[in-house]
């Protein structure tokens, strides 16, 4: 169970309240667990409901606290034989988080953070978001019955704004980038004492995403993959994934062998991948991100330096892909595996393709790619690929048109 918050840099300890930086050195705070008190077995986990809270001992709530849960987690791990065959990989899996309640992986951190806000009797919650976290936070705030304030950059997709609006939060559209909205949200967290899930609840928020690792291990029959490929915006998901594998290993639920943790970004906003390729220790911010993968358009990634460290220490890679490669990957994934992803999810598939071509993927590696958001959230990214036949309701016209296209007409 959760023991305390601790500064990642100077190790000063704090009570697990709403806080995110060390008062001594301003370093980030992180959740520390008393692992000796955690006696979680595979059988115990198996007996619980199939959602992310089946691992509650490894999540940062007090045991008696109310959990705000919409049924998030335990999403499908697809074995992708069609795409695997196309790429020449024997064992390829997609961790498909499009099936979460608000249709992205962000329901995981939002469920933890909003529950923590309620535990701390916060008067209002909020977040800064490129869209997916906004929907997830607003949905959980609605369930909790607490006011919600959402900061978004003005340029995010209409379909995402429509979804967020339905949960009835106060949406604050900021004339600027995600980074501008984030700075404003940070100032508001001080001035207005709101519990902003990815600012002053960040030590708890980042913990929710590690349930992806727990589920992958469980769904691989308590084994670990050889490599995971993860989309990177702030880098928090990649760091949480690594932490999740390490924690399952620490409490003896898996025997973790070496796992390569690889990250994927769009070339229009690839500060972490650029730092990796240029062998830098530091991440240089991108001032004006330009990519169709808007949920990855964070120019100044909060966990960028840590994500870089995880990738390098694990022997993984960081790759970046163009908008054209992203669009092609959306189509490839949909037509080979029946999974419709938003651009961020396709960034991992496009990066996988590049890594295979570069000879950086062994054919017999067990690979897991994360697909983190549903394609219905950004339909405009596939509008160029829409092909239809329009005809009057007449069978002769139908067969004539299909004959012209060379389609197979007789299936018998």
């Amino acid at each position, binding site marked *: 169970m959760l023991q305390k918050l601790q500064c990642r*840099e100077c190790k000063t300890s704090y009570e697990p309240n709403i806080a*995110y930086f060390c008062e001594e050195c301003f370093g*980030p705070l992180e959740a520390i667990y008393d692992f000796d008190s955690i006696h979680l077995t595979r059988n115990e986990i198996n007996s619980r409901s199939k959602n992310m809270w089946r691992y509650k001992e490894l999540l940062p709530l007090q045991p008696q606290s109310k959990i705000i849960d919409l049924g998030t987690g335990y999403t499908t791990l697809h074995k992708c034989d069609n795409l695997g065959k196309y790429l020449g990989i024997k064992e390829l899996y997609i961790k498909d988080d499009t099936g979460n309640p608000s249709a992205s992986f962000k329901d995981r951190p939002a469920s933890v953070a909003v529950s923590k806000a309620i535990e701390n009797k916060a008067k209002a919650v909020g977040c800064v978001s490129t869209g997916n976290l906004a929907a997830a936070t607003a949905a959980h705030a609605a369930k909790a019955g607490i006011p919600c304030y959402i900061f978004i950059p003005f340029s995010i997709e209409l379909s995402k704004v429509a979804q967020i609006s339905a949960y009835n939060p106060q949406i604050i559209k900021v004339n600027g980038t995600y980074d501008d909205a984030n700075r404003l949200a940070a100032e508001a967290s*001080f001035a207005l004492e709101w519990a902003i899930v990815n600012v002053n609840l960040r030590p708890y928020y980042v913990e929710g995403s590690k349930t992806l690792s727990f589920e992958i291990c469980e769904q691989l029959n308590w084994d670990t993959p050889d490599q995971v490929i993860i989309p990177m915006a702030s*880098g928090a998901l990649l760091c949480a994934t690594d932490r999740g594998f390490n924690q399952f290993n620490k409490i003896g639920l898996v025997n973790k062998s070496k796992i390569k943790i690889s990250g994927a970004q769009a070339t229009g906003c690839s500060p972490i991948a650029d730092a990796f390729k240029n062998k830098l220790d530091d*991440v240089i911010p991108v001032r004006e991100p330009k990519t169709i993968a808007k949920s990855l358009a964070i120019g100044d990634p909060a966990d*960028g*330096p840590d994500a870089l460290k995880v990738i390098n220490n694990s022997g993984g890679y960081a790759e970046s892909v163009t908008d054209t490669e992203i669009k092609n990957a959306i189509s490839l994934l949909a037509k080979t595996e029946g999974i419709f992803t938003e651009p961020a999810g396709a960034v991992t598939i496009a990066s996988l393709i590049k890594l295979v071509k570069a000879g950086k993927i062994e054919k017999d590696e067990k690979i897991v790619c994360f697909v983190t958001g549903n394609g219905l959230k950004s339909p405009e990214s596939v509008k160029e690929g829409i092909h239809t036949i329009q005809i009057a309701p007449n069978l002769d016209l139908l067969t004539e048109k299909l004959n012209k296209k060379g389609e197979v007409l007789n299936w018998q």
Partner: protein
Amino acid sequence: MAIVKLFSILRSDTKGKKEINIDANTIQEIIDKLESMFGPELRNKILDKNTGDVRRFISVFINGVNIRTLKGLSSEVKDDDEITFLPAVGGGKY
């Protein structure tokens, strides 16, 4: 004069003042003037004593633009510019 805004922890070194008007041409000059006004504690909190640069976990913005994307401590400051000091969100250098 630039308008300098400080977050809560730093205000303990500015006698509670959260906004201070300072006449300066660069961020470095602003920090020098803050030191001459309030003593060395504030400077030590903002700057890394080894590198002399802004500490990894503090962000400085000029009108909302992080000075890391400009010229760092040498970034130019003009009259009426708003200078904001904030703790970094996440792993730093934010």
